[in-house]
């Protein structure tokens, strides 16, 4: 795994040689802004359905190993 990761990082290192000082980063093809919506509740409470697919639950809570002694 380590050898492969190192090879990939060497490959990625090819980017260093490219001149990008005057270039703005591009995170979205169309440079659109994040759309906002009204702060209103739109989802319904589907708690039982969603708990039903959990690995371990109890009294409506997800069970995990104890975190705080």
């Amino acid at each position, binding site marked *: 795994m380590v050898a492969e990761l190192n*090879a990939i990082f060497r490959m*990625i290192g090819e980017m260093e040689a*490219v001149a990008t000082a005057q270039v703005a980063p591009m995170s979205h*093809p169309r440079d659109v802004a994040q759309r906002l919506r009204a702060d209103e509740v739109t989802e319904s409470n589907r708690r039982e*359905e969603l708990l039903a697919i959990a690995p371990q639950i109890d009294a409506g809570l*997800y069970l995990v190993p104890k975190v705080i002694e």
Partner: protein
Amino acid sequence: MLESSLVELSAQLAARQCSSVELTQYFLDRIDALNPRLNAVITLDAERSLAGARQADARIAAGQAQPLTGIPLLHKDIFCAQGWRTTCASRMLANFVSPYDAHVIAQFDAAGTVNLGKTNMDEFAMGSSNETSWFGPVRNPWNADFVPGGSSGGSAAAVAARLVPAATGTDTGGSIRQPAAMCGVSGLKPTYGMVSRYGMIAFASSLDQAGPLAKSAHDLALMLNVMTGFDPRDSTSLERPSEDYTRELERPLTGLRIGLPKEFFADGVQADVARAIDAAIAEYRRLGAQTLEVSLPNMALSIPVYYVLAPAEASSNLARYDGVRYGYRAAEFSDLGAMYERTRAEGFGAEVRRRIMIGTYVLSHGYYDAYYIKAQKIRRLIAADFARAFSQCDVILGPTSPTTAFALGSRTADPIEMYLCDIYTIAVNLAGLPGVSIPAGFDAARLPVGLQLIGDYFSEARLLNVAHQYQRVTDWHRCSPPMSQD
């Protein structure tokens, strides 16, 4: 029914020459007979599919059919479908029954199509050969010892083997186009933002896009008509007037300017592939198109850029898989940290773990600017290359992949060798442009060659027209693998 297009099936259903139930049962029987040799399908639910078919028949009888009502489709197992096991071909989600529908699934449901089942894929869509699936590799219907391409290998193989008339896939770095090319079918990645990603299990959010695989460009257009449309639940979904993607199919190609990037025709292309593409170019000239050389000088950088951006986004998207609320949880752990570590180490395959680690590293403090931001800047240079090219031409043409399908296991030792499969497809995702792959011939071993057409933003109708006109004068897209006739 075996070779019928979506157009033909729709007409047969409307004329009551067959029913949706008959069609559904026919393809279920084919899957039963042929899937063991391909491993293209992960999940079936015959009862559910037939119930959907009965509903479709009722709609048809009531005169409420839409163009694809009654037609069975397979969906890549990356689309959440309510009540269906949705695995993303991973141990992490092997037991996950989705409580909701992806927007794409809901769209097909509203259109009255029948959900025939979920197709195999590379795990979490990470791969170019469909060899990373927890459920085993998919085999190429043209030669069972060869890969079908990936990550939508199951969908491509299923359409090629005529297990289904059409299927859905997703494309982040070429995952619809490349398997379409390797399996001899047609596949389209739309402009980023045209198809909602809600309910489509996320790999790399700024690159992922759903699209159709089918036997022809006309069929792709019919599928696209169902799949596109604004969805407020996907923050990157674009609001645009609705289109009929079949509207330009018959437009003559006289005056079409086809750009041939010199970087697509350099060394490294398999001789048979180059020959087939050259023949296709000659065909396009006969159809009235002009060709001109263009250049995409930063194209080679698309691989390092992609292998920074996609893993970075994947490391964020896959952070949710922790064994707490759904999916796989390790059996033994001493504390919460160990539960997370063991769940993720056991739940994810090697390629997924590799990409999460790369992604986490390139986003980490001290490396973020040098890797992630740098890659975003080169991404803009790559997009600018395309913009420049599209000022000189209407569509760009080249091979979809440098080679035809390769033998199972032949590229798994070196990840970078596998990554290079996508050299011609990745830049299209980075720029967010639409691209289609259509069959253009075979190599000496009778393995399919794919031709890629790339269009400017939102030019899907024109792109499909250019593909369709080639399919009117050639037969490659009508060829089917010998095993599909068994």
